[in-house]
């Protein structure tokens, strides 16, 4: 399993194919200081107004800040607004 994953990774790098298509990599678009749009994720693991933890295929992403609000939440995209202080990958 690990081998095929690595092979795919190498192949996409060689062919310049976007990683989110082949690898399911998460796309995070940050607009200014107050808006984040997240694509390609599995779901919310933890959520309160100071912290949002999102589970993805390649580990978790944690946003820390203040007054978080999820404006919309669908199968492949979510929009978070609020004051963002930190983004952590784990």
């Amino acid at each position: 399993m690990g081998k095929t994953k690595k092979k795919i990774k190498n192949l996409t790098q060689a062919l310049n194919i976007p990683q989110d298509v082949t690898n399911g990599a998460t796309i995070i678009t940050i607009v200014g200081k107050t808006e984040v749009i997240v694509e390609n994720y599995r779901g919310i693991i933890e959520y309160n107004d100071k912290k949002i933890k999102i589970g993805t295929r390649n580990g978790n992403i944690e946003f820390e800040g203040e007054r978080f609000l999820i404006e919309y939440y669908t199968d492949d995209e979510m929009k978070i607004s609020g004051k963002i202080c930190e983004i952590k990958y784990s």
Partner: protein
Amino acid sequence: MQRLIKYLKGYLILYIKGFSAERFLNLCINRDIFIWDLESCDNGFRFKVSLKDFKRLRPIAKKTKTRPKIIKKYGLPFQLHRYKHRKAYAIGLIIAIVTLYGFSLFLWNISVTGTSIYTPENIIQFLKEENVYAGIKKNKINCAELEKKILYNFQDVAWVSLEVSGTRLIVNIIETNEHPDLVKDDTACDIVSLKPGIITKIVTRKGTPMIKIGDVVKQDDVLLSGTVNIETDGVITGIKYVHADADVYAKTVLQYTNTVPLDYEQKVYSNKKTKTYGMFFGDYKLYLFHPKIKYKNYESEANIKQFKLWGDYYLPIGINTKEYIDYDIVRKTYSEEEVTFLLNDTLNKYIETLEKKGVQIIENNVKITLDNKNAIAKGNLILIENIGYAKEIEIIEWRPPTNESN
């Protein structure tokens, strides 16, 4: 736009609490349930979900052992639900719309503009005889045909247009002093004299003149013939009929008499009035009260105010007021000066109307005489006016004279 759609479909604000609240949300996403404005509060979440999706939440709630609590409902479906028990309200609204639409299919008001010789009442009366009156269906009105009928029946109308605007029929009339030719331009006609007179001027445009300047003509004499003989070498070989067209001016005599009695009655209005109000629906009038009139003599004046929706959308209902005005009769006698002034004034007004018609007045020998009871203005007016009018010819097939009879 999106907000409007959301409003029309209806949505709810829900609150969920519990250990597996996040799981609940993830399950919602897996089942394609759209969630928006998700915020955390009081150890739980508050979010909005559409009414359609809300019904699908129940199995998820069961699975995650959470209980979504409805905080608020928004949107049209909920409002409609609230009005469900007010059936009379809904029925009333529908009836109001239907009746308004129904009313707009009918004609409720006729207005006539541009009349001076005829009164608007004349035209409305005529239209009523033609079955066009306030209260008929709009699609029964044939404007073009009515226009023709008005032109035919009212001699002094030069041009008329009928227009249905909203629930109102607008009749536009332009009056003329010349008789419009009732004979079409392309049919053969003669010019015939309207009254007796001495010809002073002939302007021929088409046709054969039968008279010269200075001729004395009687009524219905042919002035210009529309029959043109075709001659070759002095022998008539054929007849051509044309539409004779000419202005024939003649000196005519008009007898004028106007008698005014010296004793007359004058109304002296006191300021006493009694008013009553009412409503009308179509032809049906209803007064709120009928006042007792103590006046010996009185005039009554009625006013109607018809309601309209907007612009020309008149409704068959309105308010009418009736006013009774008290007056006294005072017997008076004209002095000589007063009566002369009165008679001269009416004569001058009469001459003015004649001149407006294009008639020239060359002599005026009206004299005023007074006897015991009356003042009389009497005399002749000598005028120069256009006396010709078109009259259709019956076409007789012309045959060249044959020699067989000889």
